[in-house]
């Protein structure tokens, strides 16, 4: 059924259709609307046979999820940014214990300076936690990925994080096709745990493992992700049979066939990139785009296959490996090993900085002429940066960088750009 609703509400409805049994919630922007909606559904009885627990921190949220999942309940929570970092220890633990928890990460920057706006720093900080991480390009895909996530998580006994851009998607009203309960039930069978806390068959879960076996346990975590690499396309195929649309593949290719320039990105910025690709193609530029849906596991072979005929790859990412460059770009480089093509890293959209079509046009044109630096910071205000650097050179007590930058930037404009 077609609906014009907020992304967060679309996700909440999709999660509800998945018949979760335990939902734990702790407020943090921009994820709040999702759990608020779910809380209302539980209270109103619309979502029955479900426990909704308001916890005291994100660390507790993930911990409650761990207990509930280990006891055999289908479990969901959502978080973002500092919240994801605050629960980091439990995030790793959930993956280590092989608990199929599904969590939404409404992607948001990490402070300091505190910033509530979108980028991918939060999710990417957990890239090695053992969670499967899927990135949504649209609200339709965000809601679809949650249904897929429960299926994938429970099949593999692994937690899945569905990443959707904070505000840009979570707070956007757009058209979505909401599946029926029958469709979801057909796709998602009841949860059958691999091991469960049950007095009828007592087991000890989460005990210590020493050097004699730890490497093997860790390798098997890796092997599970490799299994996911095979299962995601299969499940996405099943998904499209039942729901009649494509969602949640490893990657989304857009006009990449014979493209000389392939732009690689994740999340909602793919929409803007596709518009730019169309406009550039119309003027005869050979360019395409590759959206990474499955960030973990990393679909290295598919990336390689997609770009091997290209002359250059531009990785545009909303994250920064401080002191290195790109995070996604580093992964992509793994896929490109041995291929002779130019690779460019572009850091864009940090802390909610809008990624403008006009900026992308200029960027991709420069890339086409191979005039880009290895690492480019899109739309960086160099005047301001240089002024701060100069101030630090000349004054010992130069004050807060964040405050100085804002003073130099001045008042924001009408469109926020």
């Amino acid at each position, binding site marked *: 059924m077609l609906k014009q609703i907020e992304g967060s509400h679309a996700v909440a409805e999709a999660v509800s259709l998945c018949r979760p*049994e*335990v939902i*734990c919630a702790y407020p943090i922007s921009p994820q709040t609307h999702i759990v608020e909606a779910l809380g209302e559904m539980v209270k109103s009885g619309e979502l029955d*046979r*479900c*426990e909704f*627990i*308001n*916890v*005291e*921190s994100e*660390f*507790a949220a993930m*911990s*409650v*999820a*761990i*207990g*509930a*999942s*280990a*006891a*055999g*309940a289908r*479990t969901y929570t959502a978080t973002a940014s500092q919240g994801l970092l605050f629960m980091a*220890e*439990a995030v790793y*633990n959930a993956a280590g*214990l092989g608990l199929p928890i599904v969590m939404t990460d409404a992607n948001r920057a990490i402070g300091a300076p505190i910033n509530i706006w979108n980028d991918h720093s939060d999710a990417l900080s957990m890239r090695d936690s053992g969670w499967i991480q899927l990135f949504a390009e649209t609200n339709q895909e965000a809601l679809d990925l949650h249904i897929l996530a429960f299926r994938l998580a429970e099949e593999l006994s692994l937690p899945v994080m569905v990443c959707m851009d904070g505000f840009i998607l979570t707070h956007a009203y757009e058209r979505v096709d909401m599946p029926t309960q029958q469709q979801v039930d057909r796709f998602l069978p009841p949860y059958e745990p691999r091991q469960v*806390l*049950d*007095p009828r*068959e*007592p*087991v*000890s*879960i*989460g*005990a*210590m*493992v*020493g050097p004699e*076996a730890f490497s093997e346990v860790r390798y098997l975590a890796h092997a599970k992700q490799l299994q996911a690499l095979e299962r995601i396309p299969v499940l996405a195929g099943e998904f499209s049979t039942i729901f009649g649309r494509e969602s949640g593949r490893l990657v989304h290719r857009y006009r990449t066939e014979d493209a000389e320039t392939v732009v690689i990105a994740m999340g909602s910025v793919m929409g803007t990139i596709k518009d730019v690709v169309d406009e550039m193609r119309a003027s005869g530029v050979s360019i395409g785009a590759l959206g990474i849906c499955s960030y973990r596991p990393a679909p290295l072979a598919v990336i390689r296959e997609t770009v091997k005929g290209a002359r250059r790859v531009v990785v545009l990412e909303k994250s920064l490996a401080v002191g290195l460059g790109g995070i996604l770009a580093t992964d992509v480089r793994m896929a490109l090993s041995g291929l002779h093509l130019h690779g460019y890293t572009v850091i864009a959209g940090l802390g909610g900085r809008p990624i403008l079509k006009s900026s992308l046009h200029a960027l991709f044109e420069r890339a086409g002429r191979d005039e880009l630096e290895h690492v480019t910071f899109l739309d960086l205000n160099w005047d301001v940066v240089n002024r701060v650097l100069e101030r630090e050179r000349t004054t010992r007590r130069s004050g807060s960088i964040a405050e100085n930058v804002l003073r130099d930037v001045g008042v924001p404009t009408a469109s926020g750009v």
Partner: protein
Amino acid sequence: METQIIKFYQTGSFAVGNRLLDESQRSVQANMRRSNSLNSGHRACQGCGEALGARYAIDAAMQATSNQLIAVNATGCLEVFSTPYPETSWQLPWIHSLFGNAAAVATGVAAAMRVKGRQDVRVIAQGGDGGTTDIGFGCLSGMFERNDDVLYICYDNEGYMNTGVQRSSATPPAARTSTTAAIGEEPGNGFGQGKFVPAIAMAHEIPYVATASVAYLRDLEAKVHRAMSLRGARYLHIFVPCPLGWGAASEDTIRLARLVVETGLFPLFEAEHGEVTGRYQIRHRVPVEEYLRLQKRYSHLLGKRPAVATIARIQAMAERNIRRYGLLGEEA
């Protein structure tokens, strides 16, 4: 019928006997059909108070729930010595997640049981004082405040023993630990620090809070039974001596666990919804030196030049407990 009052404890040691009782009246530990929830073969030290406390408490809880029990364990000695994979001493479903989240994990387990209609299955969380009064305190308070259906058991041995005897917020004043050296102007742990979590639990007005000591088996078992007869958040704080961490003889574990009560340093009481409903009254009051003397962690107070003022401050703490909780019985 003529009746004769029998004291079920040995003269001198006050150890409570069972043999004179009918089998049905014996303690859970004296029952041949006890569940042995924490089975033999684990790696605890000789004289470990925590192993004893856990065994008493969980066996009693198993009996109270007809073995329909799930345990969540914080990181710590108890977790490490009981479960080196692929072996486990636990005879009930048991999960260890992290150091600071046992209460929250237990909340999750309880929620799963509720949603699945398994109300007969009860949940306990357990941890040492570090995992309870320090790193797990946020989750513990959250579990209390929501009145989640969990019995949380803290095995208090007054320090981080698993990591090599560091100070916790349950370490008593003047005690030496590896992070509160017995040197300087105020040797050992400082006065006026730390927290007594049973009182904080009471401030949450949860259905049940109790303290217990491994020297008082029947009292401990009765409190577990009482706790399991109630729903909602419950807290049991058990005093468990640590021979290694305290520099005490292994055979003195029970003696220390009794002396700490008889001095008044550790009050035994029960509270429901924030109000004290019962206390264990001291039968044979002893000065704190008798308790301190058995432990090397206090040796700096008791040498050739005893730290009279410090001992007096510790004695004052005992007096305060006796006053506050009304611990003086008829025989004291």
